[in-house]
């Protein structure tokens, strides 16, 4: 019996009607009626303004919205582009909405977008979030141009961040990926990315680990798989990323479980690549990045510290199974410091992360529990980071982050050694 396709007849029929295209823009949605119209308008204006001669299609996989999101997407046409631009579209603009089972999560939506890109022979495929408030038509150009015209396979975003924004990315994801994979990619879980047609086809074919990377993990997987697969990687400056997101409702614990867990799984998947990788290279960055010192995000540092020190105390027995005795002792020692003297040094933090990664690989305890045990330690690191850099300018903060990244790089042999050893 023939295997059942994950593409519905209606979706395939719509794609057939669209025919061959140059650009696919994927916009997965679920109950985003409030924001999606503006996002769709920005995409359409961007396509007309920057790619008026290219054939393009907006693919909107929807997980079963009940608030009229797909209707809003279809209705979000611009009656007169001349009010916005000095041009009218040369070509018919296509917007294809299709329902998918939300049970499988966002990776299913991405799979549909990749399938569309593959079937329609797209040269470039961009992915956009439906809850963006800060998107402009220029984002389309920034993402698509390197893939469409400059021969890059993966285009990651660079956002304009407020100070202390994205600390998990800056303290864990970015430096660990940089040290392991050897690419200085700013936003490894960037949700606005672009792929070349051939990379989209590759991702479509390699869906064997789909279920291992829920939510944002899918984007981490794409980023690391592109690097490990030898594809040409670059990044493009987009601007500030402001969303109306339900993700903010996800607590830190779940976030760390998702993204750190996905990252460790990526390390497992690509171990033959990153263990052998020696060098670390800059990633070409397109776009003009203004130097703006934006107001810092407000974080309750004291509460962070309190949760860290009580967490270390309460989870000692668990941490003993994950960390080496020396590292654990050092953590216990810093947890005992006064809050104002508290410092979670770069080397200790980097070592902690490396040991967590290795322990995750060896499944010393249940993996979910292992990731949850990382949360209080991360809180400690955040508290220390804010205390150290509270009054520092953006240049100083950048220097400190650079030294953290170099610490990770220095510890790569340590990571490899722990990764390859037998279980204690």
């Amino acid at each position, binding site marked *: 019996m023939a295997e059942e396709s994950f593409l519905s007849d209606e979706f395939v*029929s*719509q794609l*057939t*009607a*669209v*025919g*061959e295209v140059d650009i696919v823009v994927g916009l997965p949605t679920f109950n985003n009626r409030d924001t999606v119209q503006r996002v769709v308008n920005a995409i359409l204006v961007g396509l007309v303004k920057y790619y*008026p*001669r290219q054939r393009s299609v907006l693919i909107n996989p929807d997980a079963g919205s009940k608030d009229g999101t797909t209707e809003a997407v279809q209705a979000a046409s611009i009656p007169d582009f001349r009010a916005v631009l*000095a*041009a*009218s*579209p*040369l*070509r*018919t603009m*296509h917007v294809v909405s299709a329902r998918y089972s939300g049970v499988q999560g966002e990776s299913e939506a991405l799979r549909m977008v990749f399938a569309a890109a593959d079937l329609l022979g797209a040269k470039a495929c961009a992915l956009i979030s439906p809850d963006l408030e800060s998107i402009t038509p220029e984002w389309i150009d920034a993402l698509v141009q390197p893939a469409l015209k400059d021969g890059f396979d993966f285009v990651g975003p660079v956002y304009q961040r407020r100070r202390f924004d994205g600390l998990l990315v800056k303290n864990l994801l970015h430096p660990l990926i940089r040290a392991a994979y050897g690419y200085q990619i700013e936003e490894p879980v960037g949700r606005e990315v672009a792929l070349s047609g051939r990379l989209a086809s590759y991702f479509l074919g390699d869906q064997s680990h789909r279920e291992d990377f829920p939510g944002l993990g899918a984007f981490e997987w794409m980023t690391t798989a592109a690097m490990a697969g030898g594809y040409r990687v670059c990044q493009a400056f987009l601007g500030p990323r402001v969303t109306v997101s339900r993700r903010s409702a996800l607590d830190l614990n779940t976030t760390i479980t998702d993204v750190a867990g996905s990252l460790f799984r990526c390390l497992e998947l690509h171990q033959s690549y990153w263990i052998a990788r020696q060098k670390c290279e800059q990633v070409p960055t397109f776009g003009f990045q203004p130097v703006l010192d934006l107001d810092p995000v407000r974080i309750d540092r004291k509460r962070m510290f309190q949760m860290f020190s009580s967490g270390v105390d309460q989870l000692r027995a668990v941490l003993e199974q994950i960390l080496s005795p020396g590292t654990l002792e050092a953590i216990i020692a810093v947890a005992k410091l006064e809050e104002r003297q508290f410092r979670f040094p770069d080397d200790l933090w980097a070592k902690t992360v490396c040991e967590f990664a290795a322990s995750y690989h060896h499944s010393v305890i249940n993996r979910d529990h292992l990731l949850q045990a990382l949360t209080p330690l991360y809180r400690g690191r955040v508290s220390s980071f804010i205390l150290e850099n509270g009054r520092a300018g953006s240049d100083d903060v950048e220097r400190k982050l650079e030294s953290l990244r170099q610490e990770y790089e220095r510890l790569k042999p340590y990571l490899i050694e722990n990764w390859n050893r037998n279980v204690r």
Partner: protein
Amino acid sequence: MRTTSSSPNIASESAVPGADPLWYKDAVIYELHARAFHDSNGDGIGDFPGLVQKLDYVQELGVTTIWLLPFYPSPLRDDGYDISDYTAINPAYGTLENFRELLEQAHRRNLRVITELVINHTSDQHPWFQEARSSRDNPRRDWYVWSDTDDRYRGVRIIFKDTELSNWAWDPISKAYYWHRFFSHQPDLNFDNPAVIDEIWKVMQFWADMGVDGFRVDAVPYLVEREGTSCENLPETHEVVKVLRRRLNEKYPMIFLLAEANQWPADVRHYFGDGDEFQMAFHFPLMPRMFMAVKLEDRKPIMDILQQTPDIPETCQWGIFLRNHDELTLEMVSDEERDYMYDMYAFDAGARLNLGIRRRLAPLMDGDRRRLELMNGMLMSLPGSPVLYYGDEIGMGDNIFLGDRNGVRTPMQWSGGWNAGFSAADPERLYLPLLSNPVYGYQTVNVEAQRRTDHSLLSWMRKLIQVRKSSRAFSRGGIEFLQPRNHRVFAYIRTLGTDRVLVVNNLSRSAQPVELDLRAFEGYIPVEMFGGNPFPRIGRLPYLLTLAPYGFYWFRMRRL
């Protein structure tokens, strides 16, 4: 196999049969210049007797009307549009007697003849201008538009921007400026002067009395000027037209007026008035969009312009065309669209002229037979009376190096022999050199060779025109657009009473599937009009068709 041509059916009566005053709605018009068609006296220039010799060919082609480009006496600095005598024939093309003979022979073959009425301006060699400039007191002074300064009518656009710097020219004789919207040697007539209108009417009567069936009025929008306006499409211009039309209707009800007004459809609409101005007007903006649609492989440009096209009075008709004696004008498109057209069709800057492209149809289509068929198929099936430019029926090429728009006005290619069968003169004497390159040269592209085969472009064009004439839904029917999801397919239904024709065009270079919503025609049987084969009956489900690259279908919808 040689295709034998049927002998012309010369009617016993010389008058054109039928008294239908709306005959122009069913017309298939063939535009040609007597100079370019056939030379009878071996001087290297085509003439009316030569044209008469080729009327059988024109009749066999299937067209119903000949549109003659200006043949009046002229210094020929604008290919005859600079007229120096309105009621005579340029001696190079023949005499008035020759012209009368042409009319008679054409009418015998059921062919009508329309001529040019270039009334916006004359040549500066015209006696009227010579008199007008001789002194400020001359009675004809006021027949033209004069000014002591070139400040008047500021901001009015220059049409021939590649050659002219101003709409005013200095006359050294009468020491004043005169107004010209075209070349500086073509001063504009002053239609605020009733004497000018009366004189023009006399000219019209002259040719109408001779038997001409219609007038194509050149450069209509620019007849009247007013300060503080664009000097185009002014209400006063419409008044002039109404006057001429009224007089024409009273005396010559079968003669029709065709407007050349290169404007947006909404602006051209005014030239139909309430059925009391022009009976026909060219739909300029449609033409470049047909070319754009085929390159983009997207029906959007055509759909947009046709949906913007307003309804016109019942007695009126659009004139639609692909190419003509001028450049492929890109005035009525946006900057983005113009850039696209230049990049796609005129990458060689030598092909560009005056916001247009000076190439013929076949080179624009890269000599692609399928695209030529598709474009002609749309020309013959969209609403309006189609105008075919001489030579396009055999796929003639062009020569952009001949200067101005001469590259598309080269001699007709009749055969592969001496001077392409156009003239017995020495080749150096021809009014313009023949095309001789291996792709489009007369040895390869000519009537004689194409007559011999059933599958030639010429044979196909004959068949196309014949099929078009088999249904009045094309010429007089309404249009309803279908909008299948496949944007590469342009489909519509032409309806006149119970006569319904479904037209489906594939604008893409690759084969395409399309599902058409034909529920309104459930139970009908589509009969393909070229082969006569019935297709599956239409049901409730979307009607699936597959089309070859650049393929099209015409289906007559039969209910049995």
